């Protein structure tokens, strides 16, 4: 088996979840990488909450526009047919259920599929930005994150960090597993090539149900 950077593996697997025609919002960090691995036969539109649909890749040097950035204030390009709008429209799209998929990072997810993606209380709380609206409003919420942080499980019984929303997220993709939160709990649907179910359970605090149809993640290049 070829070794692959955990972040790339996660991004590649998340990219498989996107459907032709989807409107997609990618969060900062691992989610941003997803754009590089969209299957060739799938055309999606990227929305950024600072006010654009049709966001394109980082522009060539010299072609940056000071008024054309993503939600991280990095220069982006606009594909033909792109549209810009104000923040009320942008969050109208998000909260109103018009965004097909949001891919976000996560710090913790509990057994009920609730996400916490803000900083540790008592330390700095940098604020929720647009994450609460994204998790509340998007049709599908996919969390792309490493399975553990410094060896500590991030998929836990109860979040110790403040929740981003009480909406149950749709899917968790880590470098070890694909897990679907359901009304009955977290269901382990796929494990990464070369891993056993035991390997996953060992670093997961939350109870996982093993899908009767458990699969090995299919990742190109592995």
């Amino acid at each position: 088996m070829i070794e692959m950077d955990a972040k790339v593996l996660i991004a590649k697997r998340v990219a498989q979840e996107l459907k032709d025609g989807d409107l997609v919002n990618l969060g900062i960090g691992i989610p941003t990488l997803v754009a590089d691995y969209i299957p060739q036969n799938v055309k999606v539109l990227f929305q950024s909450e600072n006010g654009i649909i049709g966001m394109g890749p980082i522009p060539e040097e010299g072609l940056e526009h000071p008024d054309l950035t993503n939600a991280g204030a990095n220069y982006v390009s606009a594909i033909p047919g792109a549209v810009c709008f104000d923040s009320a429209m942008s969050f109208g799209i998000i909260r109103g259920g018009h965004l097909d998929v949001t891919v976000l990072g996560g710090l913790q997810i509990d057994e009920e599929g609730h996400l916490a993606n803000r900083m540790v209380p008592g330390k700095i709380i940098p604020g929720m930005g647009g994450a609460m609206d994204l998790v509340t409003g998007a049709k599908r919420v996919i969390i792309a994150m490493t399975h553990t942080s410094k060896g500590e499980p991030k998929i836990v019984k109860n979040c110790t960090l403040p929740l981003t929303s009480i909406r149950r997220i749709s899917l968790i993709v880590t470098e070890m597993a694909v897990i679907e939160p359901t009304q009955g709990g977290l269901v382990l649907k796929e494990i990464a090539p070369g891993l056993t179910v035991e390997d996953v359970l060992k670093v997961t605090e939350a109870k996982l149900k093993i899908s009767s149809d458990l699969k090995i993640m299919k990742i190109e290049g592995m």
Partner: protein
Amino acid sequence: MHVIKVEKAVEMIPDGATIMIGGFLGVGTPRVVIDEMIKQKKFNLTVIGNDTAFPNSGIGKLIVSKLVKKIIVSHIGTNPETQKQMIEKAIDVELVPQGTLVERIRAGGVGLGGVLTPTGIGTVVAEGKQIFKINDAEYLLELPIKADFAIINAKKADCNGNLVYSLTARNFNPIMAMAAETVIAEVDEILPIGTIPPDDIHTPGIFVDYIVRVR
């Protein structure tokens, strides 16, 4: 609408004013007005904006200059100086989900008494707020925000004060233009009346009190 030098525009702002400032991480923030506010040392400001950008850009510069006593923003994650002042209790930080923040400002501008949003239900954001159950879904009542001044940035204006924004620099600017007593717009150019078609204007000039041209 009056065209005005940036010095005169900023002289109108008293210490302690409540000010909305457009922009998203500094993109679409009126830079020249901000720099003049720092030069004129406007103290004890309450600033409403999406974020505090970076220490060397946008609203971040006001924070670094210690001119702000309170901010209402959706995050401060990109500005360590804001976080430092918050820990030292030198600045009061009210964090509001971004979509809620823009709706609260819009409500202030369009004369609504508040809006009901699902965002924040079951989280710290809901603390102390009224919750409404409508058709089995829960919503928070979020109240309008208004300000003494809105300082916004646009690409171009016409001589009536009609504004056009550029790409993602639009963001909070058109919404804030509706929600403040006095609106100061920083623009790159001022065009003759009639040269911007009625369908292409983003903010009607009736909202704009003063224009500062910076190019």
